[in-house]
């Protein structure tokens, strides 16, 4: 049953990802991308990571996609944007497929190591995913967490400066 569910979600994720790169209108690409993000959130739930699923839906499908759709509609881009030459498309596709083949071959040649950490599925379910995540985040990863705030501050200042009238 779970395998069938996984197959359906994979099919939806891959089809909507293909729609992202084939749609002529950027709005349709954005909607397909939102579909992919929801499929990934479903994967996170299946992987016992409900907090990641919530963050995925709120940050990616919510905040970032709203920004992108807002920009597309603000700029009012015409649909008849020029296409690349077909040999450039062929070259790009060959490079992408080569990446895929390379990764999949390496994936099936290698053997994943056995579990090293203390967390099992039952433990995550009993203690709560966000509690375990927060415990790690505010002890081991406290310094990177603080640096993240500086990164966000720089991003805010940068976008305000870029959005000024004269640049």
């Amino acid at each position, binding site marked *: 049953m779970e395998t069938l569910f996984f197959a359906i979600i994979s099919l939806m994720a891959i089809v909507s990802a293909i729609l992202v790169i084939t749609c002529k209108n950027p709005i349709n690409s954005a909607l397909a991308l939102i579909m992919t993000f929801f499929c990934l959130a479903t994967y996170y739930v299946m*992987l016992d990571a409900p907090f990641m699923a919530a963050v995925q839906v709120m940050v990616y499908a919510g905040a970032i996609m709203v920004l992108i759709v807002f920009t597309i509609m603000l700029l009012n881009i015409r649909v008849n944007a020029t296409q690349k030459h077909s040999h450039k498309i062929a070259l790009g596709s060959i490079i992408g497929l080569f990446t895929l083949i390379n990764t999949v071959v390496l994936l099936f040649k290698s053997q994943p190591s056995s579990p090293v950490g203390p967390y099992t599925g039952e433990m995550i379910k009993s203690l709560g995913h966000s509690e375990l995540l927060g415990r790690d985040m505010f002890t081991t990863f406290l310094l990177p967490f603080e640096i993240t705030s500086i990164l966000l501050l720089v991003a805010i200042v*940068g976008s305000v400066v870029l959005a000024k009238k004269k640049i």
Partner: protein
Amino acid sequence: MENLTGYLVVSAILFAIGTIGVLTRKNAIVIFMCIELMLNAVNLTFVAFSRHLGHFDGQIFVLFIMVVAAAEAAVGLALMIAFYKNKESIDVDNVDMMKW
């Protein structure tokens, strides 16, 4: 967690689709969305390995990747709007001001 390979294959396919999109499209916003797709494929790999190995470091990396993606979205879209004001287009072929 028996299905690690399945998640990794899906992640590889999504990443390859994102690569193809970056290399074949001209619209800067679509290229931007393809980059988001590639970041998400990597996130899926991180979470799958984190669950398989029973260690939470991968999921914390995913949170940091999301922060970087949000900052990138804010700055990148502001850049695109500034570019559109100057050039009346967001085709990446027109981004040649710094070309010698």
